[in-house]
Each structure stands twice: as structure tokens, then as C-alpha cells.
């Protein structure tokens, strides 16, 4: 079983200290739109040394050179898998304060940047991937369309028509995280070369490209630290070298589906951040708050809630550790990904709502943090594939490939 070692814990402590000292005090201003989110995030990646790590990345080599089979746990190497662990701890610690900030950061680096680093040409990685990883540029990842949500690939209408040495994009995307502020858009579109087949490919579109426009930010229930909007392509011409991976890009649907797995694998991490913080706040409050002459924590009904919340937290933590282990050493199945996404998202919403209950009227107030985490948590059940989509995929796997 994969566990955090001393070095990992030191990284976790440092991230936590940073989030509590530097992000928590300004999070209301970020949510209210008084501070643009990426300003403090840029300072964060600079101070924590993440920028310098990204500068040091050798982009001429594949991201993970060794095959998963060759990666074996080495107990003598405390830094093994550090990039995976540090990345996840950063998202988790950010989610303790603001899952919305974590989502925007994750979309920029993990989804937009990650897609380019995983599949882009060396030139694309340098020109667009690295600036996204360093937050020099802000990235968006555009899959969902007004008519294509759960059935994102099947119902996709956005097209990229081959036209000499350009592609011409037409269509619209919606619910796009960082849409209003992004510089670089990773766009899923059906490539039309004039023939019969239209395979889905990823393209890089830049803010300054003529024909690209974005809508006004949506008013949302939660994730308010993160801005979301529509993105429109209206005869948007991009040079051919913006096809991610170049002309040799894999042509199957599976190649674009990998990105979807990435997105889902981040959910246990965000969920754990939400749950840890809500649980800590709830226990702390239950010990202090006196009603009927006794601290709440002495009441059986409160203990019942806390005991069940604890079970959920440790289950989610185990899934979080397992997801990291599989990211480092390989062996992740579709069932694993969907299970983690389904369970952790539901537990995050549930634990956050339990925390509100324990805090009573105070839990409903902004000052007490848990209402923010609860509103943000709900998105985990919707984004990256709804709960139903996880269940549908799991059902399919259980009916076909799963063996006892």
C-alpha cells in the first residue's frame, strides 16, 4: 500500500502553510472578483519553486520515459514519483481552501498543459505547454458543447475543416473553465479533410486568433474562484501546426479519451482536500460549541455524524493514495478511475453538508468556510463526467471485461 513518506509530508506541510497564510485570507476577494485568481496563483508557483521545476523539464523526451511495467517501488528512493505526489498534494492543499482555485489551476496545467505535454510535438510543448505549466499563460480545455455534455464525443458539432495550410474551426463550446481569461485553448473538434470519416482531434487556438470569442462569465452555484464561459469559433483559421501531435497524431477516439481519464483522476484529490478541511472544522466546532450545557461532541447524534464522516474521509484518502500509486507505477483500470470519481465526488458533497449541519446556523455563514466547500463540492459530481456516466462505464466494464 502506497503511503506518504516524510519528504511527501514535508511538501504537504509547506503547501498547507502557504495556502492558509497566502490564499485563505484573500479567497473571498477572489470569489467576489476583486482579485484575479491567476495573480496569486502565479505568485504561488514562483514562491513554491514550481516554476523552476517546470523550467527544468526536458521536453524533448516523452514525459514518462519508462514503461509502467518497469517502474517498481523503490523504498530507498524517497523522491520516487515525486512529481506525481507533489502535483496531487498541491491540488489537495489548494482544495482545502478553494476547490475552485484548484480546478482552474488543474485545468490550466493538468488538462490544457497536460494534453499538450502528453501529445504535442516538441515545438508545441515548448511554445504552448511549458508556458501553461508555469502559469505564464492561462489555459482552457474545451470539450463540452451546448448539445454535447455527457455524450461529448458522440454529439460533438464543432468542426475543423482542412483548407490548404490552415484549419478552419466552427462551433461553440460551453461551461469552459478559464474561458473568460485563457490565452491558450485546447479544443476538441471533428477534423474534416473532405473525405467520409471525421475523427476527433485536439487543436491549439490562441486568444488572438481571429474568429475566437468568449462569452461573459456564468453566474454559478459554487466554484466561484474559477471563471466559466462559452467559447465560440466563427471561421476561426489556425495554421496547421496547431493540430496537437502534428499530422502524425493518433487517429483513434481513444487517443482523445486519455484526457478524460486525467480529468477524472483529479477528483479524489480535490475531494480529499474538501473532506479533510470540513472534517477538521466540524470536530473543532463540536468540541467548542456548548448547547444544553455540554459541548456538541458529547451528543450521540453528533458523534454518529462524525464517525461516519471519518469513515468517508479515510476511504477517500485510500482511493487518493491508490490513484497516485497507479499514476506512478501503472495498472490503473477504467473501473478504478470511475470508482474513484463516483465515490469521492459523492462523499465530498455529503461530508461538506454534514459539516454544515454540525455548525448549525454558523455553518450556513460564509465566515465559517464549510458552505464554500459544500457549494464547490457539488461540481465534482457533475464535471469530468456525471455520476451516471461513471456508473454506465462501470456497468459496461463489469458486464464485459471484469473477472473475479
Amino acid at each position, binding site marked *: 500500500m502506497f503511503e506518504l513518506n*516524510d*519528504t511527501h509530508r*514535508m*511538501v504537504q506541510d*509547506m503547501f498547507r502553510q502557504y495556502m492558509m497564510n497566502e490564499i485563505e485570507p484573500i479567497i473571498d476577494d477572489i470569489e467576489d472578483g476583486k482579485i484575479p485568481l491567476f495573480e496569486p496563483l502565479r505568485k504561488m508557483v514562483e*514562491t513554491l519553486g*514550481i516554476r523552476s*521545476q517546470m523550467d527544468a523539464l526536458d521536453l524533448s523526451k516523452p514525459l514518462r520515459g519508462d514503461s509502467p511495467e518497469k517502474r517498481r517501488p523503490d523504498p530507498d528512493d524517497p*523522491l520516487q514519483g515525486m512529481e506525481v505526489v*507533489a502535483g496531487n498534494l498541491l491540488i489537495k492543499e489548494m482544495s482545502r481552501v478553494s476547490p475552485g482555485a484548484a480546478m482552474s489551476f488543474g485545468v490550466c496545467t493538468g488538462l490544457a498543459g497536460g494534453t499538450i505535454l502528453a501529445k504535442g510535438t516538441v515545438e508545441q510543448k515548448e511554445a504552448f505547454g511549458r508556458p501553461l505549466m508555469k502559469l505564464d499563460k492561462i489555459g482552457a480545455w474545451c470539450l463540452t458543447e451546448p448539445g454535447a455534455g455527457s455524450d461529448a464525443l458522440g454529439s460533438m458539432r464543432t468542426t475543423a475543416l482542412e483548407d490548404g495550410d490552415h484549419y478552419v474551426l466552427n462551433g461553440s463550446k460551453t461551461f469552459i473553465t478559464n474561458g473568460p481569461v485563457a490565452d491558450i485553448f485546447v479544443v476538441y473538434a471533428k477534423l474534416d479533410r473532405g473525405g467520409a470519416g471525421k475523427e476527433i482531434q485536439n487543436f491549439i487556438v490562441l486568444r488572438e486568433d481571429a474568429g475566437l470569442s468568449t462569452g461573459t462569465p456564468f453566474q454559478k452555484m459554487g466554484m466561484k474562484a474559477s471563471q466559466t464561459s462559452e467559447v465560440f469559433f466563427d471561421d476561426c483559421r489556425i495554421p496547421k501546426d496547431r493540430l496537437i501531435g502534428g499530422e502524425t497524431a493518433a487517429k483513434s477516439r481513444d487517443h482523445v479519451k486519455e484526457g478524460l481519464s486525467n480529468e477524472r483522476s483529479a477528483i479524489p484529490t480535490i475531494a480529499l482536500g474538501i473532506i479533510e478541511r470540513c472534517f477538521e472544522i466540524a470536530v473543532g466546532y463540536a468540541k467548542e460549541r456548548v448547547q444544553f450545557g455540554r459541548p456538541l461532541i458529547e451528543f450521540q447524534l453528533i458523534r454518529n455524524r462524525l464517525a461516519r464522516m471519518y469513515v468517508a474521509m479515510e476511504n477517500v484518502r485510500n482511493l487518493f493514495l491508490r490513484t497516485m500509486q497507479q499514476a506512478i507505477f501503472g495498472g490503473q483500470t477504467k473501473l478504478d478511475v470511475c470508482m474513484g470519481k463516483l465515490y469521492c465526488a459523492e462523499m465530498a458533497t455529503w461530508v461538506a453538508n454534514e459539516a454544515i449541519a454540525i455548525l448549525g446556523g454558523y455553518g450556513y455563514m460564509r465566515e465559517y468556510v464549510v458552505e464554500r466547500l459544500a457549494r464547490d463540492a457539488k461540481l465534482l459530481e457533475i464535471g469530468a463526467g456525471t455520476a451516471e456516466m461513471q456508473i454506465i462505464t462501470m456497468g459496461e466494464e463489469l458486464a464485459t471485461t471484469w473477472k473475479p
Partner: protein
Amino acid sequence: MDILVCMKQVPDTETKIVINPEGTGIVTDGIKYVMNPYDEFAVEEALKIKEKMGGTVTIVSMGPQRATEAIRTALAMGADKGVHLCDDAFEGADSYSTAKALAAAIKPLSYDIILGGKQAVDHDNAQVYAALAELLDISHVSIVTQLDVAEDGKSAVAQREVEGGAREVIEVSLPAFIACQKGLNEPRYASLPGIMKAKKKPIDVIDLAKSGLSADEVGEKGAKLKIRKFFLPPEREAGKILEGEPEELATQLVKLLREEAKAI
């Protein structure tokens, strides 16, 4: 410049202190330990001097096994190496026997300046640095809020806080011990690459034998001070609100002041 920093690991300032039933100490179960906050200023100042003048920063700490975590934190901030005085014999030390052990570890080292926090927030004695400076036969400047080391590294000008918000400016020849106060600087965060590098930086562990001291010079045995008892201040009782006409109130108040509070 060879820069030393004396650093102690202490309970997190948010720890809720509970005294053990015997009254001989605090309950240490579940306590989170951190670098003494004032020592963070010392580490930061040492790193700034190093960045300006070159040299090495060595962290010197006395404490149990767990103190290596705090040493690693300082290494992750950018210090070069650690010296860890770690032996059961060092336990139960007072300011004097702490200084004694630190001096033994420091004497064989080459140093141009020694920095430390103005006090450790656990026992709040604020005496170790004075005793240490005495044992090393160097000067010390306490409660320093600004420090400028001369270009030749032979002297420094320190500003220290005195009563009423006034500042005292002291020029001191080096080596000297500088006891750092809040306001001196803004300690940096350990960075991710810093933490990864810290893993490979050397920590020299010094036990009693290696320190060259004898068991009765250090720890509880070498202490000049015996702590007889720990207790928490009594919990404050709720105040009394008197009710009635002004004359009645005055009579009640005088009665209470005389009989209960015994103030008059």
C-alpha cells in the same frame, strides 16, 4: 562567511497545552512540532547574508530524534548542513546545560557569525544565547530587528528594540551571537526543489561521546535549574453582574470588595 544558526524544534504555537497528571511536564502525545518561530528569522537572515556574501549556513540543533524534521525544514529553505545534538543524556536540559552542549558542538566548527531566535516559544527563557556567547567567549546582541554585516565580514551593525519603541544601534565585532526578533525579515517558504535537495544534505549527529562532554555536564544532570512543578493558570470564573438601585449597588459592591475580593 561561515554562518551558524542555533535552532530549536518546539510545539506548534497553536498547541493546546495539557499538563501531565504528575505536574512534571506537558502531555506530548499528538503535539505537532515546528521550527521555533524566532529561529525562522535567524535562518532567513543567515540565508540572506549567504546570498550577499557567499559562504555556508549550518544549522545547529539540540533535541530528540524528531528534531531532524525541523533541521530538514531549514535545509529545505536553503541551509547547507545540519549538526544535531541527539542523545538521551541531553534531555531535561535548562538554558545553561543547553548552552553547554551547543558550545561543545560549535567549538570545533569554523564560524564568523552565529544567529538564533531571541527566545524559544516553549519555555520562553531567552537565556541560551547569552550563556552560549559567554561559553564561546564572543559578544552577543539580543532582540535584533535589523542587521548589516560589514563587507569585510569582520563586524556588524545591529539595531535592537528597547523600551518605548526606541531603537538602539550597536556595532559589534564578529564573530558574535545575534538573537533575532520579529520584524528582522520575512522568512521564506521552503520550496519544492528545496525540499528535494534537503533530502541529500548532510546532518552530523553528535551524541554525548562525540560532544566530548560528560553526562553530568549536560541535560537534566547538568542543569542549574530544577523545575518543581508545572501548572496552568486557574480558569477565569464568570464575572458577577450586580442589579438594583445605585445606592444598593454601591453597598453590595463595597461588601463584595471587602469580603470576597478582599481588595479593601
